[in-house]
C-alpha cells in the first residue's frame, strides 16, 4: 500500500479507512516516506504496546524515524521514562482530578451558559477549543486569561504537524511562542525557596530526577509536551462525542434519564471515535511479530483506530453502545506511555456532557453540509461543528 494519512477528509472517513484496512489485511508495508509496517488489528496493537523493550518510543511518528524534536517523557524509554513519569503522575492522578472537579465544573458551566442563549454555536471554536485549554491552565496553576493565546498556538502547531508543508512555518512559530511562554514562567519562579502551591512549573523546578534537579531543558520539554498532548486531543474527542449526541437523540435522552451512563458513554466515544489514527514505534532488534520479519531500526504503526473497532476484540464493534461492557480500548494508548492526562480528560468529558445536557438538552447539527476532519497524521479532529437548539424565552 501507499497511504498518506495526513489530508483533510470527510468527517468519519478515517475510521472507515481503518475498518477497511483491518478487514483486508492484518499487516501492510506502507511505502509512504521511508516505508513502515502497519498493524491493523487489536491483538498486534496490544502486543506492540505491551512490549516497549522491542518497540521503542524514540520515534512515535512512523514517517519520521529520526525526529528533530524529542518530547519528554513521551519519547524516552525505560528506565528513565518511569522516573520522569513519577514526578508528574500524582499531579494528574484521579485524586488530583477529584480536588479540581469543582473548578472543572465551574469553567465548563460558564462556557455553556455563555453560548446557551444564542441558540447555536460552532461547538469546536466556542466550546471544545476553549474548555480544555482554560481547564489545563487552571489545573497547572496558571492564568486562564492566556487561554486565547494557547488556543492559537495549538491550532498552528497541529496545522503543521499533520504533514501539510504550508503549515510548517506557523508550526515553528507556535512552538517557539509556547517555549518562550514557559521560559518567562520559569524565570518568574527562579530562586524561590519552596514550590508554589498548586503550580506545576514551580513543582517541576523543585523536583528531583534520581537525586538531581531537572534541567531547564527538561522542564521546558515536559511543559511543552503537556500543552501539545493535552489540549488538541480533548478538543477532538469532545467534537466527535457531541456530534454523536447531536445526531442520536435516543442516546441523548438515555443520558439525561440516567446520568450514571455518562462515564461509559465517554469510554465508548474513546473507542468508537478514537482520535488517534495510529501510534508509531521504532524496532530495537530483529524480531518476528504477528507475521512480519521486523529488522532493528524499522518503524511500525499500530493502527489504533482499527484495533478499537476490531470485531475480533469487541462484540458489535461497529456500533456505539452507551453501556458497553469490557471496553478495553486503547483510546489513551497502552503500555508505560499510557496517556498521563487520561484521568483529567475523561473527567472533563464527563462534566462537559453533564453540564451541556443540563442547560441544552436538545440540540442538532446545524448544517446540511458534510463536516470535515483534519487528517490522522497527528490526530483527527472536526474542523467545525455547527450546532443549533431552541431557546425558550
Amino acid at each position: 500500500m501507499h497511504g498518506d494519512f495526513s489530508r483533510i477528509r470527510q468527517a468519519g472517513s478515517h475510521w472507515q479507512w481503518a475498518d477497511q484496512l483491518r478487514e483486508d489485511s492484518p499487516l501492510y508495508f506502507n511505502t509512504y516516506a521511508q516505508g513502515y509496517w502497519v498493524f491493523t488489528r487489536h491483538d498486534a496493537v496490544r502486543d506492540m504496546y505491551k512490549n516497549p523493550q522491542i518497540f521503542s518510543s524514540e520515534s512515535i511518528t512512523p514517517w519520521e524515524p529520526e525526529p528533530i524534536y524529542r518530547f519528554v517523557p513521551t519519547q524516552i524509554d525505560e528506565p528513565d521514562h518511569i522516573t520522569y513519569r513519577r514526578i508528574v503522575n500524582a499531579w494528574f492522578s484521579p485524586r488530583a482530578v477529584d480536588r479540581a472537579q469543582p473548578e472543572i465544573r465551574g469553567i465548563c458551566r460558564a462556557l455553556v451558559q455563555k453560548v446557551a442563549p444564542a441558540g447555536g454555536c460552532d461547538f469546536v471554536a466556542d466550546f471544545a477549543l476553549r474548555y480544555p485549554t482554560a481547564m489545563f491552565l487552571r489545573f497547572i496553576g496558571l492564568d486562564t486569561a492566556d487561554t486565547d493565546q494557547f488556543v492559537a498556538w495549538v491550532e498552528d502547531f497541529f496545522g503543521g504537524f499533520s504533514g501539510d508543508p504550508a503549515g510548517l512555518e506557523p508550526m515553528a512559530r507556535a512552538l517557539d511562542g509556547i517555549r518562550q511562554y514557559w521560559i518567562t514562567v520559569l524565570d518568574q519562579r527562579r530562586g524561590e525557596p519552596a514550590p508554589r502551591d498548586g503550580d506545576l512549573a514551580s513543582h517541576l523546578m523543585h523536583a528531583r530526577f534520581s537525586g538531581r534537579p531537572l534541567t531547564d531543558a527538561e522542564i521546558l520539554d515536559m511543559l511543552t509536551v503537556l500543552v501539545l498532548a493535552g489540549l488538541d486531543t480533548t478538543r477532538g474527542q469532545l467534537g466527535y462525542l457531541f456530534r454523536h449526541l447531536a445526531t442520536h437523540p435516543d442516546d441523548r435522552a438515555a443520558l439525561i434519564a440516567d446520568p450514571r451512563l455518562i462515564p461509559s458513554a465517554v469510554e465508548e466515544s474513546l473507542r468508537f471515535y478514537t482520535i488517534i489514527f495510529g501510534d508509531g514505534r521504532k524496532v530495537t532488534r530483529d524480531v518476528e511479530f504477528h507475521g512480519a520479519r521486523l529488522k532493528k531500526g524499522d518503524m511500525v504503526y499500530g493502527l489504533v483506530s482499527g484495533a478499537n473497532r476490531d470485531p475480533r476484540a469487541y462484540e458489535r464493534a461497529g456500533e456505539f453502545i452507551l453501556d458497553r461492557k469490557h471496553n478495553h480500548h486503547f483510546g489513551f494508548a497502552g503500555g508505560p506511555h499510557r496517556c498521563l492526562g487520561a484521568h483529567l480528560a475523561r473527567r472533563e468529558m464527563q462534566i462537559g456532557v453533564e453540564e451541556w445536557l443540563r442547560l441544552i438538552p436538545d440540540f442538532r447539527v446545524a448544517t446540511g453540509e458534510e463536516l470535515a476532519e483534519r487528517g490522522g497524521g497527528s490526530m483527527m479532529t472536526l474542523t467545525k461543528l455547527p450546532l443549533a437548539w431552541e431557546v425558550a424565552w
Partner: protein
Amino acid sequence: MKIAVDGAACMGHGRCYQLAPGLLTCDDEGYVTIRDRVIDVPDDQVAVAEEAAGTCPEEAITLLRD
C-alpha cells in the same frame, strides 16, 4: 472468587477502580492499590470484578474462581 493484579503489567489506566469502587481503589499516583496482590472478592462484587478484569487494556487482572 479472588482477584489478582499483575503489578508489572498494570499501567494505571484506572478503569478497574472506576468500575468497581466498592472493591478497588487507587494510590496517590493513580495505580490500583492491590498491584502484585491477591484479595477476596465478596459475592456482591463478583459482577463488577468481572467487568473490571474484562476492561483492563493491559490484561493485568486475573480472576481466580473458588
